[in-house]
């Protein structure tokens, strides 16, 4: 064999070896990709693995759509299937927290604002005069005729557009600094004006029947941060928003007793009056509101030291999930401290199923999920509840018309009345006894004091006012 042919056969052997490697390499690429794709496809088909609710997000996930020819024709049927498929994908919570971990790499995330809404603030009229909101322009110009490439983006972004149909409110923008999160407050003139006229209307419906107290609870960002810090964040001042609402309510109707609790909260803002990982106030924060209420009513508040307390550590609330599970919050959970009424810890409530339950004013939630510890107060958000004080026989009765901020507040009233009733205005309609007729309730139960307690969210859009005023439309 000559040198040349030997070289040639060696190089062709080398070539064959290379080709074999390349073939194996290509097989590896193809099988790795199709392997993962098929595993994903199979997991996607394992229906029992699909979650139905998200504990973390506090919502029901998208359901398989109801069949109708109309829905097929207009495309909603199929697009809802895609949404269902994505929204209830197996291992959802694990994948979401993995997503959070990836996003941590996006930048320096010590202080951050997590945007969950596209809300922005309206200016609060300075002289306190009631100003009509301008209709916002440009709305129709929005999505409809966008360029097609952009349209696809928009669609992909909001797969849950139609998932929710009840009153719940989306977590707003969350500002995280250190171990504390704040829900950002954006005043909306239209919402505030609706609130003002609704409170006036509610008092008129109850005129001569009961006294109407109105409390607006500011969220932590308006109390814990200085005015300058709030301004830097580009948010609205809740103090100004509340005084805009109250001054105009008083102008319309002097019979409403507006209870402004801002100053008392600010005076105590070095104490633990708001949760750091949740948008609610603590029971201590609610106590300072109770003090102001007592002042307005002309009674003496029970000193805080006289209550027995229960503590539930390990609370990670809505702002924790709203921040995309910021680690600085997860590592520093809140503790819920509850004050048990002196007179009794027993109550009954009408549940969302319409049935009556006996419960505790302060329930032991030690073993409950980390995100549901705030539910220790009066059983959470129920349509209707009653607490009877066994130490009183004077027939005094109040009703608190509230959303979830009211839950921590109600226990303090128990000692001051024979009957403390609670109505969650978002769900009262469920209680068939009254068919959403609140005035009938007040008359039947001979209630003297109606206490309206909402967060300043009631000034940000019209949804809270409208469920509240809905109880007076009979």
């Amino acid at each position, binding site marked *: 064999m000559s040198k040349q042919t030997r070289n040639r056969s060696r190089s062709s052997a080398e070539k064959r070896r290379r080709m074999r490697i390349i073939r194996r*390499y*290509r097989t590896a*690429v*193809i099988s*790795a*990709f199709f392997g*993962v*794709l098929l595993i*994903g496809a199979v*997991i*996607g088909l394992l229906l029992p693995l699909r979650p139905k609710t998200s504990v973390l*997000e*506090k*919502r*029901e996930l998208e359901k398989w759509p109801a069949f109708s020819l109309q829905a097929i024709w207009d*495309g909603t049927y*199929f*697009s809802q299937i*895609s949404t269902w498929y*994505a929204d209830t*994908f197996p291992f*959802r919570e694990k*994948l*979401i927290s993995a997503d959070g971990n*990836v996003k941590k790499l*996006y*930048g*320096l995330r010590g*202080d951050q604002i997590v*945007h969950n809404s*596209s809300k922005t*603030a*309206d200016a609060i009229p300075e002289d306190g005069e009631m100003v009509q909101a301008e209709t*916002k*322009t440009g*709305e129709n*110009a*929005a999505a409809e*005729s966008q*360029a*097609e*490439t952009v349209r*696809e*983006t928009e669609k*992909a*972004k909001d*797969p*849950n557009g139609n*998932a929710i149909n009840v*009153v*719940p*409110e*989306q977590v707003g923008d969350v500002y995280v600094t250190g171990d504390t999160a704040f829900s950002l407050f954006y005043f909306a003139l239209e919402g505030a004006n609706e609130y003002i006229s609704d409170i006036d209307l509610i008092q008129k419906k109850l005129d001569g029947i009961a006294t109407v107290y109105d409390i607006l609870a500011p969220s932590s960002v308006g109390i814990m941060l200085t005015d300058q810090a709030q301004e*830097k964040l*580009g948010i609205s001042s809740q103090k100004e928003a509340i005084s805009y609402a109250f001054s105009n309510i008083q102008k319309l109707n002097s019979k409403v007793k507006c209870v402004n609790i801002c100053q008392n909260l600010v005076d105590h803002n070095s104490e633990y009056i708001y949760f750091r990982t949740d948008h609610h106030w603590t029971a201590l924060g609610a106590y300072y509101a109770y003090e102001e209420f007592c002042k307005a009513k002309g009674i003496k508040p029970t000193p805080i030291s006289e209550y027995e307390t229960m503590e539930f550590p390990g609370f990670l609330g*809505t702002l924790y999930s*709203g921040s*995309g599970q910021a680690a600085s919050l997860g590592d520093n959970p809140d503790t819920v401290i509850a004050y048990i009424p002196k007179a009794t810890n027993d109550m009954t409530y009408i549940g969302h199923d319409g049935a009556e339950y006996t419960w505790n004013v302060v329930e032991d939630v030690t073993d409950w999920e980390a995100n549901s510890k705030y539910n220790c107060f009066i059983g959470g*958000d129920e349509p209707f509840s009653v607490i009877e004080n066994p130490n009183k026989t004077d027939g005094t009765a109040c009703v608190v018309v509230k959303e979830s901020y009211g839950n921590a507040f109600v226990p303090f009233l128990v000692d001051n009345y024979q009957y403390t009733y609670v109505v969650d205005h*978002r769900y009262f309609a469920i209680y068939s006894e009254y068919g959403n007729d609140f005035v009938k309730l007040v008359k039947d139960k001979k209630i003297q004091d109606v206490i309206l307690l909402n967060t300043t969210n009631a000034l940000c859009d019209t949804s809270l006012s409208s469920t509240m005023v809905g109880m007076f439309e009979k």
Partner: protein
Amino acid sequence: MVFSSLFFVYFFLALNLIIYFKTQTIEKKNIVMLVFSLIFYSWGGPRYLFLLIANCLIAWICALMIEYYEEYAKLFLVLDIIMQLSILAIFKYLGFFLGTVRFFTGVPEIIPQIALPIGISFYTFQLLSYVIDVYRGEVQAQKSFWIILLYASLFHQCIAGPIVRYQHVERDILHRTVKRKEMVRGIKRFTIGLAKKAILANGCAAVADTFLLTDDLQALSAVPAAGLWLGMLFFTLQIYLDFSAYSDMAIGMGLMIGFHYRENFNYPLMSDSVTDIWRRWHISLSSFFRDYVYIPLGGNRKGQGRQILNLFIVWFLTGLWHGASWNYVLWGLWFFVFLVLEKLFLLEKLETLPRAIPHLYALVVFYFGWVLFKFEDIHAIGIVLRGMLGLGGNGLTNMQVALAFKNNIFFLIFAIIASTPLLRKLYESAGMWFKRRKIVPYPIYVYNIVCPVVLLILATIALVGNSYNPFLYFQF
């Protein structure tokens, strides 16, 4: 259905590929693709499927007629163009046209609200190019209607491009074979596109939307200058990453089963002039206008005055194609102005300058173009431009802007790198390094095996993350 959804990737595409590779002959494979494409198209409601089929019928018949009755070829061509464009005009532009008429005359009072049939701008252009190419004798008319329907509806490119020409894919439709080498490339290309869309484009959109509020002018005018600049930067990146990701996915899926679509983007952010931008941006669209409008109008062969008029027509139409609103027309004409300047003298000047200067100039033109593109409301454009200069009483910056910048700084840097050929260059020079030394490039092989899988998993995580939607109050 969109490519960047879990349902598409793990159900539709997976099923499509399984059935496709189980099918033996090309005829049956084409039936599989057609059925999947029609289902894909009908996903948003089957209403407009009939329109798509009608469009294909028109193109199919006209093309056959052009070939059969040679002496009347022109007639059938004109007939086809009129019919196709009328359908496009009615479904895409009627509302816009009547709205403009009403603005000037006050009539008509009621403007019909016609929902835009998905992908109509893309498939109309594809079918037009087919019929014109038949007329020009560049391709033979296709006898089978189903092939034409498959060509126009093929889910890879039907709703978001690239605008594929029949003459470029005819061979693939009729005789394609899958090469493993190409499949490997296709897999990589598809996963890059998917990750680009799910992670980068969606991430950019989230930041851009924080500052560029399209539906609330009052709020928009309060966004500080730095917020608008930052928002526009993210929007510029978003629109490139988003659009090119769709083309990547289309090209990738095509390669997996033997289709060869042409490149649609070539790193437009690397352009040195506006002329260059349009050689690199949405190439299938700009070449469509070049071949079917600009050159037939005479191009640059009928004197400078006529050339400028031709350019005006092309860029007016290019703008209008992007959406039925005047801002898109303005966007097209914005480029027209610079293109004319470049043709007249600027291009020569630019070539004498150090490369950084023309590059910067092109980027600035590109960047401000997106202000016109983003806002359909002309008032909003005014607010943003004034606001960017800090003339709207909106302040220079605030904490939200500073935090958005800080929170996304690494993401921004990566998104910019991903918009340049840097990573590809690195990959290629690594390949050259091994080739020159005649070593088997094992590290590159490993990279190519791992990369698609990692990208697919990351994209999946991001897509699930997109559906994260926490609520404050909720009762189970």
